[in-house]
């Protein structure tokens, strides 16, 4: 595991897309996770945003985020399919091969696994001709799906080659979801791992969970759950996961700090994580040699 496996997310940084891309690249990262807002909010239009991304030389980890897609019926479903198509189009234009989809928070949506599986299959099918993979994530305040083993169960049932799981350490830690569930995952079907920590020991309510997720996340190594985050990465690494790790750090302070300062903290987090993981795996390697 090295720096090439890690990327930053534009949502952690303030300002214009070009500045974010420059800061990420200057910090030594080779990839970046993009948000739809980076593209549609670009003052010179979408084409300029796409050009900036391509010129940056950064690999696009993925594109986010399609929300509240699954479990809807009738006109709500048709509306969301239109939204999904538009997002898939942007995703392709940016050269991103992955679209992040969060579990639905809507009370209007059904949690019937059969309907959810049907919708995930449909989304995966829409993505096939565009060469895009769908990464489905359990949002910890999702209405029906809020822990990663549930999301994994649906991904497995849908059984589509370009449909996999997105794992976010924040959501797993926030709900106290045990890391034991990782053992049930197929590492080849984990399409993305997003990493973040936070500053307090416990989250007491769903409202606090949302508030923390959107404003108070920090890089791994900066919060109080470092041991768990490192354990998660170590476990995934041992299982054979070789995909990307993206820092999904929403933090109100970081979006008012100079970009190089924040990007430096992300770099330190990579070092901290790789140290933690390699340190712990050394005895195992020695044992294997005997």
């Amino acid at each position: 595991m090295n720096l090439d496996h890690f990327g930053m997310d534009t949502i952690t940084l303030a300002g214009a897309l070009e500045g974010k891309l420059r800061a990420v690249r200057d910090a030594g990262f080779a990839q970046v996770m993009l948000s739809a807002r980076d593209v549609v909010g670009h003052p010179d239009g979408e084409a300029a945003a796409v050009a900036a991304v391509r010129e940056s030389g950064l690999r696009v980890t993925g594109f986010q985020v399609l929300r509240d897609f699954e479990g809807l019926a009738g006109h709500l479903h048709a509306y969301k399919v239109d939204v999904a198509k538009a997002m898939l189009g942007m995703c392709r234009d940016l050269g991103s091969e992955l679209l992040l989809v969060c579990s639905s928070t809507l009370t209007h949506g059904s949690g019937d696994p059969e309907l959810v599986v049907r919708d995930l299959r449909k989304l995966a099918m829409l993505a096939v001709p565009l060469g895009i993979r769908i990464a489905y994530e359990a949002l910890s305040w999702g209405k029906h799906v809020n822990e990663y083993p549930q999301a994994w169960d649906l991904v497995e049932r849908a059984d589509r080659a370009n449909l996999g799981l997105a794992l976010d350490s924040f959501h797993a830690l926030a709900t106290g979801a045990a890391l034991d569930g990782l053992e049930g995952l197929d590492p080849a079907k984990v399409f993305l791992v997003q990493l973040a920590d936070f500053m307090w020991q416990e989250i007491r309510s769903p409202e606090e969970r949302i508030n923390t997720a959107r404003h108070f996340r920090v890089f791994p190594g900066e919060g109080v759950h470092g041991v768990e985050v490192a354990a998660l990465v170590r476990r995934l690494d041992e299982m054979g996961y070789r995909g990307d790790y993206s820092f999904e750090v929403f933090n109100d302070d970081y979006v008012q700090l100079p970009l190089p300062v924040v990007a430096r903290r992300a770099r330190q987090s990579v070092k901290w994580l790789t140290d933690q993981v390699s340190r712990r795996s050394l005895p195992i390697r020695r044992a294997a040699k005997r």
Partner: protein
Amino acid sequence: MTAKEALPEPTNPLGVDGIEFIEYATSQPQALGTVLQTMGFMPVARHRSREVMLYRQGSMNLIVNAHPDALPGLAAPTAVPELKAVALRVRDAAYAWRRAQELGAWEMPIRASAMELNIPGIHGAADTLIYFVDRYKDFSIYDVDFVPLPGVAPRPPALAGLHYFGVVQTIGPDRTADWVDFYRTLLDFSVLPTGQYFGILPKGTLLESPCHKFYLQLLEPPPASEDIVWTEGLLRIGLGAPDVLAATRALKSRGVVFVDRGAVQTSEKGALTQVHLGGVTFELVVSHLQP
């Protein structure tokens, strides 16, 4: 306990029944027409409102589209002819189109003019289309949209029993499983066991149509091919022939040249024509299919 009869699921819910036509797009329709004629395809009709020509040979219909907006919303045809569409015969085109969309296919915009047929379609690889046609028995789509060329036999016979055998599609690296899902889910194709190949180019993954009348070959880029430009799309048409050697003899006498380089040699199993116009090639495969 209730006794349950093990009835199989319907394997062909759309009633797929072979290929109705295959479509090329090009800005040089006459040059492509010359190539097609050496292959035995004859021009038989012209579209009423567009720069589109229908070629025919035996059971095969082949359309050459040179209209500036050949395919709606997509780029104009290039000088190098490109395979742009495959039209499938189905039981009910409207049903097939609806079902495909419910399962996640991208619909294709309508392009018919007044009094012309609206042929429903969905997007396939890259900017190619898959059409659904259900009028191929009592009367054909060409009766409505095309005007026959005067003094030309409307049904020229096939050369040496040639018929559509399949289409070869190039796909990106590690994309076989994605495209297998696509064809299996939307059109009920099935994957042939590994190692079962036809012809002389045993590569990639072969999918069989639910009507057992044609095949799709999916080709990922060959290993160590970083220098090759390999984009997704339809690469070439496969033509079936009951006797490949007789077919190649007949075609050679018309000026068709076959590749004989390395592993690619004409044999009783198959043959490959040289590339024309920068991208047009035909593969011959021994076949006794009755389209």
